[in-house]
């Protein structure tokens, strides 16, 4: 009995105690953020170079954790929230205005929210391999009417943000006809995975012909792997907009430092590294912010987006329609 307890004691003792004079800024972020392949390390390095502070990311389930902690949270700011949870997050009344000029944003939609600030964006898209799929669907309608031999992988809207975006995408294109659209799409869905990475793995293994991902996904293959065979199918009906957001908390004990972090988000230093750190478009696009392969990506002519209230109202009915389409 005693050994494990001793071990546990050693762990606690071994945890380094940082006793620096620098103020600490605590930012809650999603799991993917803090790995060396995520944007976290670069943001930390960039901000610490200018703030004379210690930026500490706490990785995990951002909003659930915040909701559980309430006013006593240690977070000064949160990063990586998606638009699907902003209604819920806003309702807590825990967030303070970001104080940034949103007219500087280079988004395909208008963004006037004064609390949640986008730091990157992209659109949902189906990705295919052009050497393997000879006649890719040229429109959403084409995809629905394609042979059922065309197999796609999608994500579950109940566990994945991109899966939820697909629900809203279909709703945006087909409106009241969404159930019929899903009835046509369902036989082509080889499987529904809990998260994006499992689906994408099925695609790169050649198990499915197309995968639900982002318009920016081919950029990774072009830039990091020098592989230009992975292409996003661009549909004239439009693509659903997705963005990740930053917000500061009212309860921060270092309001000035937190505000300077918010100011850093739209600065050139932050925005210029987002493209390759996060494989998405930066919220502010200036000359040189997009590497070559990125800038050449085809862009949809139309972007679909529901405001937070619209999305909140659509979510449950859209989910029920989706469940019904797969029920038989």
């Amino acid at each position, binding site marked *: 009995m005693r050994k494990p307890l001793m071990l546990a004691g050693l762990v606690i003792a071994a945890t380094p105690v940082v006793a620096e004079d620098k103020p600490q800024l605590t930012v809650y972020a999603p799991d993917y953020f803090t790995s060396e392949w995520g944007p976290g390390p670069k943001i930390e390095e960039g901000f610490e170079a200018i703030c004379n502070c210690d930026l500490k990311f706490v990785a995990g389930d951002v909003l659930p954790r915040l909701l559980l902690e309430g006013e006593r949270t240690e977070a000064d700011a949160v990063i990586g929230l998606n638009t699907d949870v902003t209604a819920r997050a806003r309702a807590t009344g825990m967030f303070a205005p970001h104080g940034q000029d949103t007219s500087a944003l280079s988004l395909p939609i208008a963004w006037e929210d004064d609390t949640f600030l986008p730091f990157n964006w992209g659109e949902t898209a189906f990705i295919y391999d052009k050497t393997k799929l000879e006649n890719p669907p040229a429109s959403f309608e084409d995809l629905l009417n394609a042979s059922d031999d065309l197999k796609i992988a999608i994500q579950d809207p109940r*566990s994945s943000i991109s899966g939820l975006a697909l629900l809203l995408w279909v709703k945006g294109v087909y409106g009241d006809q969404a159930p019929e659209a899903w009835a046509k799409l369902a036989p082509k*869905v080889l499987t529904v995975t809990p998260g994006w990475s499992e689906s*994408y793995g099925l695609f790169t293994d050649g198990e499915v012909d197309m995968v639900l991902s982002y318009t920016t996904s081919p950029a990774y293959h072009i830039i990091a792997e020098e592989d230009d065979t992975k292409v996003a199918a661009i549909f004239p009906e439009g693509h659903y907009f997705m963005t990740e957001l930053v917000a500061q908390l009212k309860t921060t004990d270092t309001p000035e430092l937190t505000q300077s972090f918010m100011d850093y988000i739209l600065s050139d230093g932050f925005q210029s590294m987002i493209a390759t750190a996060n494989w998405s478009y930066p919220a502010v696009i200036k000359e040189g912010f997009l590497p070559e392969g990125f800038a050449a990506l085809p862009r949809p002519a139309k972007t679909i987006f529901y405001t937070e209230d619209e999305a909140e109202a659509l979510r449950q009915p859209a989910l029920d329609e989706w469940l019904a389409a797969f029920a038989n």
Partner: protein
Amino acid sequence: MARGLRQLIPAALSAALLAALVLGTLGAVTIRAGGFGALRGPDLSALWFTVWQAALSAALSCALAVPVARALYRRRFMGRGLLISLLGAPFILPTIAAVMGLIAVFGRRGFVNEALGAVGLPEVTIYGAHGVIAAHVFFNLPLATRMLLHGWQAIPSERFRLAQSLGFGPAQMLRHLEGPMLRRVLPGAALAIFLVCLTSFAIALTLGGGPRATTVELAIYQAFRFDFDMSRAASLALVQVGLCLGALVVSLLVTLPSSSEAGLDRPPVAGLGAGLVLRAQDTLAIAAASAFLLIPIATILMRGIPTLGALPGSVWSAVGTSLWIAGGSTLLTLALALPLALAAPRHRWAEAAAMLPLTASALVMGTGLFLIARPFVNPTSLALPVTLIANAALSLPFAVRILIPEARQLQADYDRLAASLGLTGVARLRLLTLPRLARPLGFAAGLSAAFSMGDLGVITLFSDGETQTLPLALFQLMGSYRLDQAAGAATLLMVLTFALFWACDRIGHHADPR
């Protein structure tokens, strides 16, 4: 009497800790949610799917394990020990790696379909309810096989000798020797597998082909994350606990009590199952099980080994963290499991307590612990201890399940002798209990170590964003498009997990005086 009670103290402490972990956390979540919420229609269909797929998976795994375990018991061949160890591998595989392996074999572009296509036969699909069940059998057949093999090995060879000299045929062997053993071991094995499949999440979703394959665990996840409805999550978690306890009661009712049948530890009898038909039957069972279980694993290895060299340095430091956590969790598991297993033959509550963690939803447990710890300490400072305890709790049911049949046997065979010699306390533990239980203890330690290696940060709420385990690194690689490196990390995880398992299992075998 007083001494008898005192002997129960460690078991009672273990049981109390588990009850606090499982029921206490559920209670904390319920209090925070302000009560239980009403279930919705889709929750009920998830419940139905969960129960029937788990029951079918358990039944199939056990039914298939009988011929395989018997064949492995009866036959002697080169590399038998290694094969037995290897056949245990799927059970300890990280889910992601196992799903990748199964798809590589049975997927649309897998060998099986390529072969079928080459001879003009229609494609088979692994996506659907049958895929979920096939995957669950893939995972759990090894567990059932090992538990049965231990059961066969526990039948004293004198009995087989006697049966042979009486001229028993296979049917009579089954009826008089193997049947009673099966009735002692199978209900427990089926229960453990049923419970594992009950709380399945990622496999069911990935291979299920769509939302029809929604399990209760996914419904809990949805209630938490999608609907932010903690009270419904609490109700679902309670339903899950209820289901598991119901299954436990059923299995206790059908389990045959142990009879005293002490043997003299002679090696197994040669010449069991002689004859061409039985020989062919055993060969077929071993060959089919090996193909089904080992080919997917070989596929992952072949794909991952070439990328091992390209793994980033941080993956190797994650290896260190993972090994460390696995070691600590294993010690903790054994310390908690042994008292419960020794108390279980006489006190059914010990067995029930040991099964409790299987009924828990990882999400509810993590949230409950967070709610309990939060008023006192900063949860991130508890990241490692909580991970150790959670891992230990989640592997404990298997450890106890493995130990119970042999603990029962041990007490039936040696209690009177030990009592007449006045062998008690530490001396009894050292001279009798530990040596006689070395084999299942080694196996249980191997399983716990393997589970802790494969754990994907059960407790994300306690994560400090710095401590990185190997499964987390694997997940992050997958999440950032680095799927080749992820395959390498999966291979590394699989090899290390298996090496740990194998080492513990071997130590157990060597420490066994038999």
